[in-house]
């Protein structure tokens, strides 16, 4: 077959050099006429990444040959509609490399109407180029672009002040824009921001240093892209391994394939399997090339565990102490992606890591005015809106805050009727009570949770009911009569304190009825969420009002659905 090899060793060195070049992914954002496509064309042209036959298609009819006859935008606007209208509609990806680095550019549209496309392009980028027209200065749109970059966690930003040729290459004008932008961007917490005056059309400070702006002593745009420090701030402490696929072979091998998205994994390590919370050990780790002793992210591999467990797609192996939150309730910021606005009564599907679960949006906490960065009260999100919501999922997600771990902190919402991607979401952390969650790690004693469940005949659960309601009495009786170990907690005090008590009962295997004042309901739920309590049922006020008998039975059905208690037999 056609393998030809036998190259000189210096060729192998060369290949190694090229293959191990650092990759920088960045996106460009600018308004319709800021010259964004021209800038990308310029970067590619000056770094010799455009082929001659592609240049032919970029020649403007009627212009004499030479650089001015080239319409750089023709290169990036790949769709007919874009070329006809002269605007960028969808994200286009372009590739180029220099001797120092490889680059992937996401060319994103600037218009507000395409905020969602920009968010998409930003999601995989580690640097943003915000283009500003030197004549117009910092506009509302520039602010929006910077905000979206920060929302998606982009840590480096270049503010390219373009069209300097049209403002006489004025240093004063450049300084004005820098001051304006810095003032606005301060609260966005972007790790580093670099300002560069350029003319994309003429090439000043893009690849080649401009002789017309001797006052500027910073790097050229390409110089900056080649040198900005991107050695990733990988999260090596919190091991997360979402299971994608179970691999079985004829000789009895059973392994779990997936990406190691954060943390370090070594054979023999203790890992906790979610959702079962069973702690076991990594027996072996396999890739096509070799068997591994130690793995670092990002890598895809197949692991085997010391025990035969029920693990499938959607499960996650995690560090037993530094575990993610396990909860059905998730706070997230959403960018709304479809024409059909958010519907609080509709069901959505949440795709998070390798799980797809049903969910409902419990409430919209606020909508962000992307131009002023102010939070506005709202109960609605429409196309391109950005807002904060609370999601209630049918099954628990295993998640971290997006800022801490993008792989376990990102999700998409899918409309189950149209199958469209309705929203992208960044999970936010709840600041208060953060300490509580970490101090309440599950104690792993000699008696395992499954052993307790086996003895009790049911799993532990927490049922949250409004205090003094007859439902509390009825429910305890009903569950007891069905053979459950059940107890009611009616303490008054800080929810976090009571939670500690409830958590202990939960760990002992009991079903706990937690009677709380209505006013502290949200706090209780948030606290339960933080503590990673799996089976948490909050009885809604509307259900409780239907009468305690019906409400109690409905809670039992809920417990059956969640697999906490076995289904009722005919004699019950």
């Amino acid at each position: 077959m056609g393998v030809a090899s036998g190259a000189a060793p210096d060729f192998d060195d060369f290949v190694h050099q090229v293959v191990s070049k650092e990759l920088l992914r960045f996106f460009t954002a600018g308004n319709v006429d800021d010259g964004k496509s021209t800038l990308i064309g310029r970067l590619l042209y000056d770094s010799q990444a455009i082929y001659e036959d592609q240049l032919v298609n970029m020649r403007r009819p009627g212009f004499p040959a030479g650089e001015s006859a080239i319409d750089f935008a023709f290169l990036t606007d790949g769709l007919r509609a874009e070329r006809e209208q002269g605007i960028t509609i969808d994200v286009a990806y372009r590739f180029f490399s220099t001797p120092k680095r490889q680059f992937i550019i996401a060319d994103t549209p600037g218009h507000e109407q395409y905020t969602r496309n920009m968010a998409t392009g930003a999601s995989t980028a580690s640097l943003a180029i915000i283009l500003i027209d030197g004549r117009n200065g910092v506009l509302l749109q520039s602010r929006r672009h910077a905000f979206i970059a920060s929302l998606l966690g982009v840590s480096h930003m270049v503010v390219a002040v373009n069209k300097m040729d049209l403002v006489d290459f004025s240093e004063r004008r450049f300084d004005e824009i820098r001051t304006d932008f810095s003032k606005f961007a301060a609260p966005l917490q972007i790790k580093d921001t670099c300002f560069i005056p350029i003319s994309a059309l003429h090439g000043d400070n893009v690849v080649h240093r401009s002789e017309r702006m001797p006052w500027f002593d910073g790097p050229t745009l390409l110089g900056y892209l080649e040198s900005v420090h991107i050695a990733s701030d990988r999260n090596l402490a919190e091991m997360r391994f979402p299971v994608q696929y179970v691999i079985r072979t004829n000789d009895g091998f059973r392994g779990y394939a997936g990406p190691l998205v954060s943390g370090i994994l070594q054979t023999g390590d203790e890992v906790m399997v979610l959702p079962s919370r069973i702690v076991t050990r990594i027996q072996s780790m396999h890739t096509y090339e070799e068997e591994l002793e130690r793995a670092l992210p990002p890598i895809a591999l197949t692991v085997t565990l010391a025990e035969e467990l029920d693990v499938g797609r959607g499960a996650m192996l995690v560090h037993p102490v530094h575990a993610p939150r396990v909860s059905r309730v998730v706070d997230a910021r959403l960018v709304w992606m479809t024409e059909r606005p958010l519907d609080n009564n509709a069901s959505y599907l949440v795709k998070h890591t390798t799980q797809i679960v049903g969910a409902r949006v419990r409430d919209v906490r606020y909508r962000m005015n992307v131009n002023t960065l102010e939070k506005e009260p709202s109960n609605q999100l429409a196309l391109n809106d950005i807002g904060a919501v609370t999601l209630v999922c049918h099954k628990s997600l295993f998640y971290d805050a997006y800022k801490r771990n993008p792989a376990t902190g990102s999700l998409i919402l899918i409309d189950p009727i149209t199958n469209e991607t309705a929203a992208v979401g960044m999970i936010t952390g709840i600041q208060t009570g953060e300490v509580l969650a970490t101090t309440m790690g599950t104690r792993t004693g000699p008696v395992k949770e499954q052993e307790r469940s086996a003895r009790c005949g049911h799993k532990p659960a927490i049922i949250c009911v409004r205090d003094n309601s007859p439902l509390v009495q009825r429910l305890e009786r009903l569950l007891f009569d069905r053979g459950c170990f059940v107890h009611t907690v009616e303490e008054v005090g800080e929810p976090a304190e009571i939670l500690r008590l409830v958590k202990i009962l939960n760990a002992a295997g009991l079903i706990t009825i937690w009677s709380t004042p209505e006013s502290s309901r949200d706090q209780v739920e948030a606290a339960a969420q933080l503590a990673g309590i799996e089976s948490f049922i909050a009885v809604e006020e509307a259900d409780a009002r239907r009468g305690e008998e019906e409400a109690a039975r409905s809670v039992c059905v809920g417990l059956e659905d969640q697999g906490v208690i076995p289904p009722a037999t005919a004699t019950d």
Partner: protein
Amino acid sequence: MVRLAQKAFYPGRIPFPFLHIDTTYKFPEMIEFRDQFCREIGVELIVHTNQRAIDQGANPHRLGTQACCGLLKTRALLDALEQGGFDAAFGGARRDEEKSRAKERIFSFRDKFGQWDPRNQRPEPWNLYNCRVHRGESIRVFPLSNWTELDVWLYIYTEEIPVVPLYFAKSRPVVTRGRSLVLADHIDSVLPGEEPILASCRMRSLGCVPCTGAIYSDAATLPEIIRELLSFQRSERENRVIDHDQDGSMELKKREGYF
């Protein structure tokens, strides 16, 4: 792409069959390679041809490239996907190949007629791919989207992946037709009045015999091909006649269901 699949499912086997849309105008060397390769790695190979169109005399000289591709590639592909009941298919297309492909998603949704709607694509943040479809609809998956031509050859070199010998330069009979260099040692490839000459050349991309040009080249080994790539001034699909039959022709083909 096969190597990536082998790695992804290792130590298990690739759990899906391979599908080849054979227009009957493919290079014989490629067909031979295909059969041997699939046998060696032990995968199930499905070959589908739009025999009805061929029987009715469909060929690029008679129909023009647009109609010919429409019948022998696009229609054949859609029929094969439907017959197999496949709701997803992997393809090797890359974004650097052509400007409308630069807009393509990694998981690209196709409606029940196999059509691509470039103005209404699903957003694709992070690596959270939305692969939900209704019955009859499908997803085309392009795992190599962000690879460049150079990346592919470097990978072939480092992984020692076998390739069709036509990619390596050697002296072959050719004729010059318009802007293309057409290999003359294949059936029907020489038109009346054309006089083949011998030239050292190789294929940079493999489509159908009448519609894929060779390039002058002396690159007979992988390192030579890689060095040659680094010196190239012209794009890889330049020699694909079908990309140039009108402005945006790849976009139009893709809209109809072409890979």
